[in-house]
């Protein structure tokens, strides 16, 4: 297994024929797939409701929430037919209100319930069309390549140059052959970190570059309103999720959509952090709901199939790194405002049109390297490493049978609470892998050192007071900066040697170069620069909060203790 494999060209597809891809087969069976998903959701929920009257009040509560959403939080993406649908549901609920016979009432309620879930499922479901997929995967890289050749001061090349290929800008590392092989042995679930709205298109493209078949993945329904992104997501087969909907049946349906897709062998991708990391720090806590679908898919496979035919599920964490996150400023402000609270954050972004999105992609890839995509080694659903052939290897190096995790006294048994604990363990392992696959870029290093040095100067202040310090009071002596940067760099190289993180090749080079490159690339397109050199050659900041955001990328390794 080569953990440091680097990809410099497009790899041959693992399965050349798109019609052989699991995602295609899933779309061919769409009717039975959705039916299984809906039935599973209804069965599970009715069991949890117990009493028939609970369903009736649940229906009313869904209706209330949906009406509320349509009036208070309307989005462009909302279909005009929605109002008609919910009015019809309202009419039906009013009718069942009047039914006195319990059995009949329950029967009618169940019908309404099914039609709501069917409506949801049609909204969610991905439409995978091989023809569109083929076009998307050809056109977009082409567009990407064109954009990349136009670095600042190089505008003409945008139109006429074709020297650089997309692969020069995508720095893909990790056990790629291993992941490719596993995609033939079982079902692969890619779980990336999430910092920016461009993560979705990026990872979609990367999956194609490394030759993996198309993947089932969910994307926020709001993204489907951004012209080109909408096309891209649709054509790649993304399914839609609406974060405004909080009702349990909808959330259960989404989970079951993922479970059934995984169970049916569709390779999947989801962001286990849920939404983008607000703080700029690598996700520490994951949303276990969606992650649990990997585990449930595996258990169902083991229950329903013979051991040799039950497909195994593999989880592959991926860390995406950029020098520049366009949304940095709004993300960190949301983080500071909502710190510690689970709240709905309006999905309002700095870019919401095709033009702005293209500009963003352009800006990110003109940095060097444009994007760093680090694959971690694959695991099974309980967090064991797996070998090249997909066998689980436990923490003490024994080859183990995944089925043994789900048996009690020799018998396979469903146990939701056990699943939850395993999912928690898997989540912890993914976080560990995020940290160890995180690739340190020059801009991370300079922002980390600078922020910590500045914070040390204002020791008495808490974080919030400190972040309000006027930036013109801040100046770091360049010579002091070099000393501290070298200290932290040495610690990072030690961590790298222990396999606790990855570093970009540049970090192994000269300090002068790291500083120069880091300052040049750090958040280069922000209106106020996180770090810049002044006329004395010293380092100053124009935006402490954005600097904090970039600095946070290196939290989680204890490096900050050096500055205490």
């Amino acid at each position, binding site marked *: 297994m080569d953990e440091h494999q680097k990809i410099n060209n497009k790899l041959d597809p693992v399965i050349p024929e798109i019609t052989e891809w699991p995602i295609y087969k899933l779309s061919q069976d769409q009717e039975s797939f959705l039916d299984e998903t809906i039935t599973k959701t209804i069965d599970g929920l009715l069991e949890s409701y117990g009493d028939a009257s609970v369903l009736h009040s649940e229906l009313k509560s869904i209706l209330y929430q949906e009406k509320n959403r349509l009036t208070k939080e309307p989005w462009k993406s909302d279909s005009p037919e929605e109002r008609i649908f919910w009015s019809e549901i309202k009419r039906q609920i009013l009718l069942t209100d009047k039914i006195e016979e319990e059995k009949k009432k329950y029967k009618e309620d169940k019908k309404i319930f099914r039609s709501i879930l069917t409506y949801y499922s049609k909204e969610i479901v991905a439409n995978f069309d091989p023809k569109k997929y083929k076009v998307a995967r050809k056109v977009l890289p082409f567009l990407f390549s064109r954009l990349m050749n136009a670095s600042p001061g190089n505008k003409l090349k945008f139109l006429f140059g074709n020297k650089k290929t997309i692969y020069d800008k995508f720095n893909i590392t990790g056990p790629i052959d291993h992941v490719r092989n596993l995609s033939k042995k079982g079902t692969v679930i890619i779980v990336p970190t999430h910092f920016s709205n461009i993560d979705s298109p990026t990872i979609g493209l990367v999956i194609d570059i490394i030759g993996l078949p198309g993947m089932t993945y969910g994307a926020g329904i709001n993204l489907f309103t951004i012209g080109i992104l909408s096309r891209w997501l649709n054509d790649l087969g993304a399914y839609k999720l609406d974060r405004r909907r909080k009702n349990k049946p909808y959330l259960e349906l989404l989970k079951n959509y993922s479970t059934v897709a995984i169970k049916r062998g569709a390779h999947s991708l989801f962001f286990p952090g849920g939404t983008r990391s607000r703080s700029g720090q690598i996700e520490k806590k994951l949303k276990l709901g969606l992650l649990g679908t990997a585990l449930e898919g595996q258990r169902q496979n083991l229950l329903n199939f013979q051991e040799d035919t039950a497909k195994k599920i593999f989880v592959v964490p991926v860390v995406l790194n950029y020098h520049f996150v366009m949304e940095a400023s709004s993300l960190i402000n949301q983080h500071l405002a909502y710190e510690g609270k689970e709240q709905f954050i309006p999905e309002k972004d700095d870019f919401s049109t095709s033009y702005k999105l293209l500009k963003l992609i352009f800006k990110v890839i003109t940095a060097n390297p444009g994007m760093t995509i680090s694959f971690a080694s694959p695991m099974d659903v309980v967090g064991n490493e797996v070998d090249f052939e997909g066998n689980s290897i436990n923490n003490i190096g*024994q080859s183990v049978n995944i089925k043994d995790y789900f048996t009690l006294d020799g018998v396979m048994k469903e146990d939701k609470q056990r699943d939850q604990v395993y999912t928690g363990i898997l989540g912890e392992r993914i976080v560990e892998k995020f940290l160890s696959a995180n690739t340190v870029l020059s801009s991370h290093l300079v922002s980390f050192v600078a922020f910590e040095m500045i914070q040390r100067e204002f020791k008495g202040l808490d974080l919030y007071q400190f972040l309000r310090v006027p930036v013109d009071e801040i100046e770091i002596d360049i010579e002091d900066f070099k000393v501290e940067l070298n200290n932290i760099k040495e610690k990072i190289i030690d961590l790298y040697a222990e396999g606790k993180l990855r570093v970009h090749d540049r970090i192994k080079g000269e300090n002068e170069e790291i500083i120069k490159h880091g300052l040049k690339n750090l958040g280069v397109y922000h209106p106020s620069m996180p770090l810049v050199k002044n006329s004395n050659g010293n380092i100053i900041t124009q935006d402490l909060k954005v600097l904090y955001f970039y600095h946070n990328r290196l939290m989680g390794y204890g490096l900050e203790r050096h500055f205490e």
Partner: protein
Amino acid sequence: MDSKDTLNKYGVVGSGSFGIAIANLLAENGEVLMYTRSEDQMTSINADRHLKGQEMSTRVTATNDYKQLAEECYLIFPIVPSDNFVDMLEELAPYLKPSHILIHGTKGLYTPKKISNEIPLRKDEVFTMSELIKIKTGVVRVGCLAGPNLASELSEHQPAATVIASRFNEVIEVGQQALKSNRFQVYGSNELLGVELAGVLKNYVAIASGMLTGLGYGENARALLITRGMAELIYIAKALGASEKAFLGLAGIGDLIATCNSSKSRNYRVGLQLAEGKNLEEIIASIGEVAEGVKTLQIVKALQKYGYRAPLAEILYKIVFEDLPIKKGIDFLMRFSADKDAEYIV
């Protein structure tokens, strides 16, 4: 494994007094396979039906083969002193699978580091027994057994209760089915770390309790020791990442009351004999088995950089290892400045 027409078979590792008591309790609900290294003990169990003065149920069979133990029992109770725990796990691990469930009954902490007064320990250098199981074996479904369970009283068939703690409900359930009986209640808890720490940390409070008796002090002083000792344990446990919940239950206050009041508790006897003027070596020689409290004291002291308040541990450490006169130390503690009562409950 077993078809359900036959009795369940439970495994026990360790043939100390608590191990024997647990084996006999398990035997009320099924067959028991008990691992012991010693041939003599095997004979005592299999032929004589007696071990260390305790009668053994006819349903208990002894073996010295870990492979047999792992193959025949999916539920195993390791109950060996913390000093031998790692060796035991390393020998057993090759035969264990992820389908096994391990519920240990060892109240101790382990550190691979040499404990010294000069070099402080880090949190990640100290392990509870369930953490050791997870590191040293491939078993994930792990639990612990803790509570006021003085082995001698259990062997006399006196009524008692225990707590099984695990992150997995199924571990608690199978443990309850295996152990519960008319004379033995089994409670469940998901606070694994808290329950383990409660079981371990209380040991040094028991040493202090023995000292109080040795000095001729009465129940007012002991009640003060128990309540303030409890507060101290909670501070330490919180600093190590556990919640206070477990401390208010059977494995916390329950166990603390039992061990602080019983002359049958080894830790209590260590304190008592120290107060009578014996030194530590003499005491360990006379008691025969290790008193976990002494080691716990060293670890708690070495962990002190985590900033918890542990005046009791500090003074006891000085008495046991640095020759502070007992009376001086205990009197200092009894006058220790009063703070708010039960301030650890927020």
